């Protein structure tokens, strides 16, 4: 009844592996056109930038996996809010960092919870609900800061997040890897993860097998909010400063990272390892395009084209193996 172990090529043709392969290729390409692109220092820098995107994209991965056109457009705004809460609440005091972090995570969780309730109970489409929430959070930020965030970054954040831990690799990269292992375990090795894939694949089946679909959705959007706030914490540690639209540029790239990582937009298929690879690819592409000195519009076009090509390749692979 058992089948001989799958030949390597099939494994290599899964989307996350394609993404990793592409990342290596991009690195080599960069080195070729601009020697020095693949230097150790450069690579750690790229990793660090990918880490921000990757951490913010944790929530997006969960939400997209949950299916039902799941998407979270409020991640960017919650990143900003999370950073601002820590910045203002600590006022630069190390001692207040832990409570401030907990408050930021709690607020992120609550915002996501409201998203989830709107989507699961009131049946508002996720796109509409989270887009609305993005506006609300931005409004809250304005009210909370008056447009000019006051406060300071606790010094200890610098040593946790931007200073190298070992081998010149900064802390946020380690944080990312630890989170990556944690989220992958959450998805593959817990009842929550199994139920998440189930509701993404077929909600009727899930419900008739005892999965509380609405509760799962609410929890998942809440987690997305919490991970976005965590992204704000990491970003603040790196920048040591906040501004009012700090997180905005991350919203759409998180979706791109999830998709490039091979998670199906329809839900129920994919994982966080893919998103990590996707975040790397996207970061490499932008670095490469900047290195090449392409103007902004050229970068946007190339970026878009790469996404389209990858999606076409994945679609083909799925059909072939479907």
């Amino acid at each position, binding site marked *: 009844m058992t*089948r001989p172990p799958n030949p390597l090529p099939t494994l290599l043709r899964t989307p996350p592996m394609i993404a990793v392969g592409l990342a290596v290729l991009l690195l080599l390409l960069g080195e070729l056109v601009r020697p020095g692109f693949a230097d150790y220092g450069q690579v750690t820098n790229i990793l660090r930038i990918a880490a921000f995107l990757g951490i913010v994209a944790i929530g997006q991965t969960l939400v997209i996996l949950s299916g039902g056109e799941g998407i979270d457009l409020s991640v960017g705004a919650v990143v900003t809010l999370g950073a601002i809460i820590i910045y203002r609440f600590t006022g630069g005091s190390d001692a207040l960092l832990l409570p401030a972090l907990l408050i930021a995570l709690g607020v992120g969780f609550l915002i996501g919870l409201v998203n989830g309730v709107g989507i699961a109970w009131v049946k508002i489409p996720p796109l509409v609900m989270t887009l609305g929430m993005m506006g609300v959070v931005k409004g809250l930020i304005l009210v909370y800061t008056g447009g000019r965030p006051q406060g300071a970054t606790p010094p200890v954040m610098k040593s946790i997040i931007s200073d190298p831990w070992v081998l010149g690799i900064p802390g946020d990269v380690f944080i990312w890897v630890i989170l990556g292992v944690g989220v992958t375990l959450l998805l593959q090795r817990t009842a929550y993860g*199994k139920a998440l*894939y189930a509701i993404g694949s*077929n909600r009727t*089946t899930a419900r008739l*097998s005892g999965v509380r679909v609405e509760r799962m959705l609410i929890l998942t959007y809440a987690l997305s909010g919490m991970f976005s706030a965590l992204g704000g914490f990491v970003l603040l540690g790196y920048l040591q400063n906040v501004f009012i639209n700090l997180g905005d540029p991350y919203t759409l790239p998180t979706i791109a990272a999830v998709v490039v990582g091979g998670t199906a937009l329809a839900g129920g298929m994919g994982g966080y390892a893919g998103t990590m690879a996707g975040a790397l690819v996207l970061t490499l592409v932008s670095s490469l395009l900047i290195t090449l000195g392409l103007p902004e519009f050229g970068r946007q076009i190339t970026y878009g084209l790469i996404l389209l090509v990858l999606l076409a390749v994945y679609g083909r692979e799925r059909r072939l193996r479907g």
Partner: protein
Amino acid sequence: MSETLLLQAQRVSKRYGATIALQEASFGLRKGEVHALLGANGSGKSTLAKVVAGVVAPDGGEIWLGGQAVRFRNPLEARAAGIAVVYQELSLVEDLSVQDNLWLGHEPPARFGRVDARAARARTEALLGLFEDVAGPRFAPETLAGELPPDERQLVEILKAVSLEPRVLVLDEATASLDGRQVERLFGLVGEWKARGWGIVIVTHRMEEIFRVADRATVLRNGQVVGEVRIGETSREELIGLISGEASRALHSAEARASAPARRTSPLLSLRVRRGRKLRGLELEVYPGEILGLGGLHGQGQSELLLSLFGALPGQDLSLRLEGQPRAFRHPSEAMRAGLAYVPGDRNREGLLAARSILENFLLPSWKSYHRGPLLDLGQARRAALEVGEKLKLKFGALDDRVTSLSGGNAQKVVLGKWLLRSPRVLLLDDPTKGIDVGAKAEFYQLLAELRAQGLGVVFYSSDDDELLSLCDRVLVLLEGRITAELSHAELTRDRLIRASLGVKEVVSGEP
């Protein structure tokens, strides 16, 4: 080759990884013939149908059509050549109307090169008219396909193939979700189509259907053809022997009604519905060790009744007692915790996670009990899944394969098997043997007998009257959401069952 043959498959082979779906399988279909394709679950019947339909490209072998070798690169080419196939897994577009589904991909015959809306409507109505009186009131051109119950969707699939006016019509388990009257009507039509010279291939696991309608049969076992017989010259035993490769004695005995009559103690489960969705004032009790059948035509509230027991239709005016205790399940998870299990009637829409593995489908209702600390014990989960798979003789590649790689009957075993992992006290079954082969059916009956001996209560709806007659202690017949008859012991006969289903009044049902 021989001119009398309309369609011929010659030494067709197909592998999926290490699974051999077909191995040099050959069969020939004559004009005006009904040819049954038989075999156990996973023996390659659907794969052969898909090769003929141009859906699956064979690794080897040839297809001959009317004396010419053909090679279809896609289903459209096969269709153009006059081959229409009703696939085992339904394929209607749920958001399109019945009429649009019927003509999807081919327009109704048009005059002056334009689709004439009125003519199209008339053609559609003529087609639906074939089954009108054995379907519900919503069986109409403008109804959305997704709103039809499974049996009526199946009828639309059949009509969609018929609308092509094919030379060859393949029906892959098209009767599995139809009730007795619908099957009767279909077979009447098959007789007409046959007379017109169509060649018809039918795949079915119901023996009586083969003897009712087929002229010849080709039997597959593990992808190989093991026999071709003329129906007039064979027996049920011979066919079962060919299909299973064993003497049919064992299979037969298990089908007999489990002997132990239910001990009339206090009821395990009792339900009283005052007003519900599709249900109107009814009461029932299930005793430990009893198999309670639900009979009647399709869509008379049987599914709603089972769903209500399972807590999946909240907001109805009903009261439920489990072992005497009043219970109100607001969600299936609550019913599950109380020891209920439910096998839905539509495996693809309600029973399977198509995108996930066999393992995850098996364990979906039980993951929580495999937590060891914060993480799941996947090793133990795999062992449990393998054990159930073995018990049900599941034919599969690996536990991590997509559940869609299973044959139809094997997928049904997964839908059923996931509840065995939980050792329930009450089993609610909505047509659970749909598409399951004779051997596995016998084993399933055996399993039911074992479970009832342990004191389980079973509520069982089947579209197959024979199953109700041979398995159940008692059958409640439903008509328009009410129980119109309760048949047991000597009253439980085919005749009574059919009469009650149709609402034919009985002359006082005293002692027989």
